[in-house]
């Protein structure tokens, strides 16, 4: 059985509108990074929000690590799903320092454990020394890495990334892509990655799912990253 299973999911914002996602299915293996490609408005971000629990589907089910998180009669609240997410605009808490941001999801750990885990995260994303800063004092690339560290810190069962590179300039993108690939590998993370940039997919993802007008996976292709893995 697959690690993540999205089964026949449909979603509409309002009953009067045509569905954003219609009868969509796909699955992922543990440790796999899947890129979702598609034109804007094809429901890529919505798919992530459905998996995260930030929206409820009209129909269909999502199963993560054997647990049904949503179907016709079940709805697991987003905070109980153990899913991490990096948003397009990062959403770093402006009133908290970088360290406080990263420790935010570690509320179940003791203070010592929390510190240790945060330190581990800072090493992972190579931001040691920036702990005391506030988000607005960081560059875009640094903010992006803080968001990643924060999402990974509570050891989510899977990571969702919604166009995480769209706010970065081209030079930065290239270096961060390879860093991200390495970080995901080290963490053995299952990751669903929304992008509209073919370069992202080639550098990071093992395979892609294309969402289009038909809202079905029309194309599944292995990428360079898969071979490299």
């Amino acid at each position, binding site marked *: 059985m697959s690690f993540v299973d999205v089964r026949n999911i449909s979603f509409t914002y309002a009953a009067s509108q045509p569905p954003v996602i219609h009868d969509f299915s796909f699955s992922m293996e543990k440790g796999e990074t899947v890129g979702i490609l598609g034109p804007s408005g094809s429901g890529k971000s919505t798919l992530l929000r459905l998996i995260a629990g930030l929206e409820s589907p009209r129909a269909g089910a999502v199963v993560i690590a054997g647990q049904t998180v949503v179907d*016709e009669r079940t*709805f697991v*609240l987003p905070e109980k799903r153990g*899913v991490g*997410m990096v948003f397009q605009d990062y*959403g770093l808490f402006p009133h908290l320092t970088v360290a406080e941001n990263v420790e935010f999801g570690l509320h179940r750990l003791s203070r010592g454990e929390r510190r240790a885990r945060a330190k581990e995260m800072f090493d992972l994303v190579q931001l040691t020394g920036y702990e005391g800063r506030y988000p607005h004092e960081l560059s875009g690339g640094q903010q992006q890495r803080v968001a990643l560290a924060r999402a990974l810190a509570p050891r989510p069962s899977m990571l969702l990334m919604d166009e995480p590179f769209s706010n970065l300039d081209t030079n930065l993108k290239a270096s961060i892509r390879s860093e991200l690939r390495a970080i995901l590998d080290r963490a053995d993370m299952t990751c669903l990655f929304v992008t509209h940039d073919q370069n992202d997919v080639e550098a990071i993802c093992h395979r892609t799912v294309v969402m289009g007008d038909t809202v079905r996976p029309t194309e599944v292709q292995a990428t360079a990253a898969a071979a490299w893995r």
Partner: protein
Amino acid sequence: MVWATLIRDLRKHTNGWLLIGLVGAALVLLPLLPILFSLFQAPNANWLHIQEYLLKSYIAQSLWLVLFTSGFAILVAVPLAWLIAAYDFPLRRFFRWGLMLPLAVPPYIAAYTYSTMFSYTGVVQTTLRSVGLTVSPTFGISSMPGAIFVFTLFLFPYVYVVTKSFLENQSGSYVENALLLGRSPTAIFTRIVLPLARPAVIGGVTLVVFEVLSDYGVTNYFGVQTISTAIFRTWFGMYDVDSAVRLSAWLMVGIIGLFILERMLRQNKRFSASTSKSRPLVPRRLTGAAALAAFAFSGLVFAWSFLIPLLQLGVWAAWTYADVLTPSFWQLTYRSLQLALAATAIIMVFAVVVANVYRTQANRFAQALARLITAGYSIPGAIVAVGVLVVFLEIDQQLAPLYARMGMGEAPLVLSLSLAMLLIAYVVRFMATGYNAVEAGFEKIGTRYLEVSRMLGQGITRSFFKVDLPLIRGALFSGAILTFVEIVKELPLALLLRPFNFETLATKAYQYASDEQIHQAAVPSLFIIGLSMLSVFLLDRFGKERTE
């Protein structure tokens, strides 16, 4: 299948926040329901008379008052807000908060101050006579234009405050871009600032409209026949409570229409920023004639809407303070403030809860809940008063056996003679003031931080305390202060629901004014203004801290 999904969504949305929100809505709705039900009862003969001969005129007068006041308030407030936000000129920093000060002067106080100043014995006419000029003996401002004048001068800050803070905090990058694109300041104002500020302006104007529609003090003092004064007159003049309630029911129907209109106007024009970082606007220095004009405009508005009436009240207070300031006056003040504070605290709790339900659930039900809980603002004080009284009498009746068992005698009036009635009435009436501020605060931070927090394993409640609360603290504080000031200034509810021997500062001032003791009224009036000034000052300081 469908049922299972419905139950799933119901369960997903049911939490403590929703339950507390429902309690708040019930609290607000309970006194208002009897009024709406009155529409379905057969009208009496008196109502037919009112409907045939008076209603049209009441509606017309109310409409004129509302239209002209909102129009003039926009004309005064929006250019001022833009001047203060975008330009630097002499005394700008002072005017920046000074122009909020008229908020501290309740219109009914301004009405009797200006009307006395312009009267035959007032300072204006006596000064003119002393230099040999005479004014027509019929001249006076106790009229429709006078009421519009007073309402505009003392209500425009509602529009000014929201527009100014919106422009200061949100418009920086747009204005800079427009400048770089070579647009003139006028074009920037009309093409960029006005459309962007529209939701803020509409929010402020809505407050002005409801203030005007609910007013009793100014219109009654000036003899303007609005629906609100008509409600008072049918109640106290004709002793026809049914018709009074029916009048207010129709007013309520009209106001619900207004609500829908406001929402539509705001929703169609809610632009979402393409960047989550909003840059503050950096003011540009004006020189020469432009600086002088900006200074003169701000100074003139400030003088008329604050300085002149304040000086006049100061003079009167100097004449009478010895008679007025007695120990019982101090006690009255203390109790009046305590009551206002208690009501504010209750309001802010419900406001935060319902605003949070509204934004976390974002469905029709939550929207209805938010509309319900703010419904009281549209209801004139007199009507809230009847509604609350009816409910409290009913509760006392239901509790009579309990009272008897406690040895308090047969069917005593316990709750309906207590301060609780006025407290609840304040909560019903002013929930919207607190709520709107909180909702605006939530709107500003959006739901992203909440979503992030939930993805990191925190529930809605923990997210609220750790993320939302620190980020909306400013809005919460502003809302609390505005609410507190509203309550201290409030007149009709207090006049009708205060227990025997209980006076608020407002009722004391109005009582003096109605008894032709205008000079004595100056002392409690200055107290009200002083307190409100303190809140305006705090509001401004907090606003600055936030933007720095």
